[in-house]
């Protein structure tokens, strides 16, 4: 590609001398752009090969993984030097791993070594209640632990498993050599409790003898996680059809939020950047399964994502406050921060999982900045990037962000943020990350084998939805 472009340039240069055409640099750049654009799946967001500076960003992010991978087991800490991780973070790690391999920052040998290790873990790890990946694992021993990193089975999370499913599927499709083993890992699981026939996802919280199963996921993350299940054949279309939504207008922009009341359910329903960014980069804001009902899906995820982006840009224009908000995790209590566009009844609100105000923790989030920069090219996201592009320790990775109130760095270093840097840069080169499905693999063969069915509530075990029955299909 480069070679022919250069030769072309010479020709153009000769012509330019002859007839005074614009310089050869412009022509080459245009040719390159066309190539880059054609490579970019989905044709939205920022595209193009990485600049030197962007490659440097990727290297810094990968540094995190180099430092935090247990060489014996291949497991990666979710926080710098702290040995726990969740299934969400395994998903993030897989995304980062695909990115560095695709971006040529690691060779295929290293990629395969790391893949082999993570496949081994996925196929041998202890399962919570012997049925599903647990909430949290220890990266030194590979055992399940509780929030204070002591061995315990504390249950599982449907939303986190959903994200892991997304990346297990993406890798299975992009790298067919691993598909069988990813399928086998998924076939170890029992889906009866984690997702019901209507696509609603659940979490189980266990503590001693107590066990509680509750619906999990709010607008944004619910659709993102549901897409992960849909990628494996589960019908979660209903989440895209009959979501319970309300609307509020912030700075003139209509913002859609989840109508389930946190005061009644105990679960916050924030409007923040990340779920919409991930849904965009990974799925192009489209439901990945087939629409069995034939009814038009009525959540326009792209529209909702645009709104969340727009209102933050407007806030900067009108009020001069640089805004890139999303939820984030801390190693120490309060652990989860919902740093939101809208949450718990208020715009530009920042609360903990319990709903306590944590205004002082509002961030220009590195993760959100990268995501917005990747999907919405323009002067605002350039401005955002300017604000965070030096927020890293070259030897440990990217920081979480910059505190809105003081401008100080929030210097905690997490897997998810560093994975997002890599995922964004991969998106810039490749476009939409979820590829088209290519043929059937071990998973489907296994599902098709009616003589060997176990009670796992896999897609074929699910009843046909009432809508389909009504249409007589």
């Amino acid at each position, binding site marked *: 590609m480069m070679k022919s472009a250069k030769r072309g340039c010479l020709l153009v240069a000769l012509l330019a001398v002859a007839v005074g055409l614009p310089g050869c640099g412009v022509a080459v750049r245009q040719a390159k752009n066309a190539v880059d654009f054609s490579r970019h799946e989905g044709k939205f967001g920022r595209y193009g090969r990485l600049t030197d500076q962007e490659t440097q960003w990727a290297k810094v992010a990968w540094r995190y993984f180099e430092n*935090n991978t247990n060489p014996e087991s291949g497991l990666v800490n979710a926080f710098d030097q*702290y040995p726990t991780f969740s299934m969400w973070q395994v998903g993030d790690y897989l995304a980062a791993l695909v990115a560095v391999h695709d971006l040529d920052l690691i060779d295929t040998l290293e990629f395969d070594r790391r893949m082999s290790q993570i496949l081994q873990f996925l196929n041998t790890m202890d399962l919570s209640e012997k049925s599903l990946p647990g909430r949290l694992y220890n990266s*030194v021993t590979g055992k399940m632990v509780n929030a204070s990193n*002591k061995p315990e089975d504390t249950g599982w999370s449907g939303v986190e498993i959903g994200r892991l499913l997304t990346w297990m599927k993406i890798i299975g499709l992009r790298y067919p050599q691993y598909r069988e083993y990813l399928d086998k890992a998924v076939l170890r699981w029992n889906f009866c409790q984690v997702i019901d026939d209507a696509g609603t996802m659940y979490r189980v919280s266990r503590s001693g003898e107590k066990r509680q199963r509750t619906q999990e996921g709010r607008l944004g993350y619910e659709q993102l996680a549901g897409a992960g299940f849909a990628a494996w054949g589960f019908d979660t279309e209903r989440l895209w059809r009959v979501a319970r939504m309300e609307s509020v207008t912030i700075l003139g922009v209509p913002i859609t939020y989840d109508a389930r009341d946190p005061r009644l359910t105990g679960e916050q329903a924030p409007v923040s950047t990340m779920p919409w960014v991930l849904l965009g980069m990974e799925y192009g804001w489209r439901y990945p399964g087939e629409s069995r009902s034939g009814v038009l899906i009525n959540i326009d995820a792209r529209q909702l994502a645009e709104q969340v982006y727009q209102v933050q840009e407007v806030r900067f224009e009108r009020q001069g406050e640089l805004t890139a908000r999303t939820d984030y995790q801390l190693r120490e209590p309060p652990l989860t921060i919902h740093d939101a566009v809208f949450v718990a009844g208020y715009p530009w609100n920042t609360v903990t999982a319990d709903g306590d105000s944590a205004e002082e923790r509002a961030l220009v989030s590195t993760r959100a900045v990268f995501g917005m920069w990747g999907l919405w090219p323009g002067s605002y996201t350039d401005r955002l990037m300017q604000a965070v592009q030096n927020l890293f320790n070259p030897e440990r990775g990217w920081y979480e962000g910059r505190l809105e109130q003081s401008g100080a760095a929030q210097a905690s270093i997490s897997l998810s943020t560093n994975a997002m840097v890599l995922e964004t840069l991969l998106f810039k080169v490749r476009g939409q990350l979820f590829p088209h499905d290519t043929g059937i693999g071990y998973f489907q063969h296994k599902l098709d084998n009616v003589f060997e069915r176990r009670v796992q509530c896999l897609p074929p075990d699910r009843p046909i939805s009432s809508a389909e029955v009504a249409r007589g299909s």
Partner: protein
Amino acid sequence: MRRLLYLGISALFPCLGGCATGAKMAYEDVPAARYAQRSGALSDTEMKMARIAWKYFENNLNTESGLVNAVDNYPSTSMWDTASYLAAIVAATELGIINREQSHDRIAAVIATFNRMPFFRDELPNKAYNAKTVEKVDYTNKPGEIGFSAIDLGRLLIWLKIIKERYPEHAEDIDRFVLRWNFDHLVDRTGTLYGAHLNKEKKVEYVQEGRLGYEEYAAKGFELWGIATELASRPEPYETVTTYGVSIPFDARDPRKTSQHNYVVSENYVLDGIEFNWGIACERNTNVRHYRPEWMANFANRVYQAQENRYRDSGIVTARSEHQLDQDPYFVYDTVYTDGFTWNTITDTGKHVPQFAAVSLKAALGMWVLWKSDYTDLLFQNIVNTYDPQKGYYEAILENGKGPIKAFTANNNGIMLEALLYKAQGKLLKWGKGKPGLWEKTLDEAYGDKAKTRFSFRRTNNPLCANAQ
């Protein structure tokens, strides 16, 4: 190239750190291999010697910090020199020169300072400190940071371990100090040791540190703390050169290209002998002749033999080490071999300064205790009266007949005390009943919210290194 060669050798002899590497050099014995070591209660002369050496540490204690000056009356020190001070305290205690209370106070003061002193880039102890104020300093004792030395830290780890085993009351505070260290740039998973220095642009650079003898000695400190040093512990890459009929091993990494001299001296072999009996770091058997990696004792015997032979052939009394001077350039590597020449004496920049060739007192006394011979009797007589009763033992005696080098150092007097203690007690690393302490528990802890992963180095799986349960 050098690295390829190195890997080639390790592939041929795929054995873990410390095992004999066979074919490279036949380990035929030199006569020194059959010499006994000196052991037994100290004579009056030897006790007097110890008291004089201890005088240095009485004079040079900084009460503000608990540290002693590395050089008489000059308030600067390094981790190597501080390790020699700790060795001196142990020797003075065990030989009855100070009582247990004085000993305890001196050690506790050093450890307390360790636990509050600032580190180079918050990573590790700086190469040098102001011994009074405990500020990080450069080599001119001006405030500033200059890097860290894996060799110095390795020796310090050895003495911290010896103290933990002998005086477990200090174990917890010592562990707290070592837990402050950031090992990320110090040792990697291949078990190679790295030092840090600032380049011309004042940017920090981490480079492999340690040459044959010193490298393996320092590695033992890390092994004692459960950190694998596979590559550092191997004698390769080395070559040999023959002088006075003895082939001497030296480090094959070219000093012209690496800015580290490959000096062959007595000091590291002496320290390895008196602290470890030339055995592997975690060896628990105290029998001198118990199995040990063949090469280390063999190399030590050769370095000794070459010096004895030089005296026999040329009449020049020889006991070589790096040592201090009482004039510019203040410090020389006074060697059996370095940088291409046998019996080479150079400054740290490599300048040839044969006029400073000398009998190093610490080397002489170390050789005296490890090799009982007519020659070391002579060495002893040569040095026994080379002291200032007010200040301690002199650094060395010039070969050219111009008398003693009138410098006094913690390292020289400390190692002399160590050597005397070896005569009284044998191998200085005495295993106590130490149970896994704060260090082991913290390092092994996978669970709990204080858990911290250290994936940058490999843990040893040597059962001998594991503490007695």
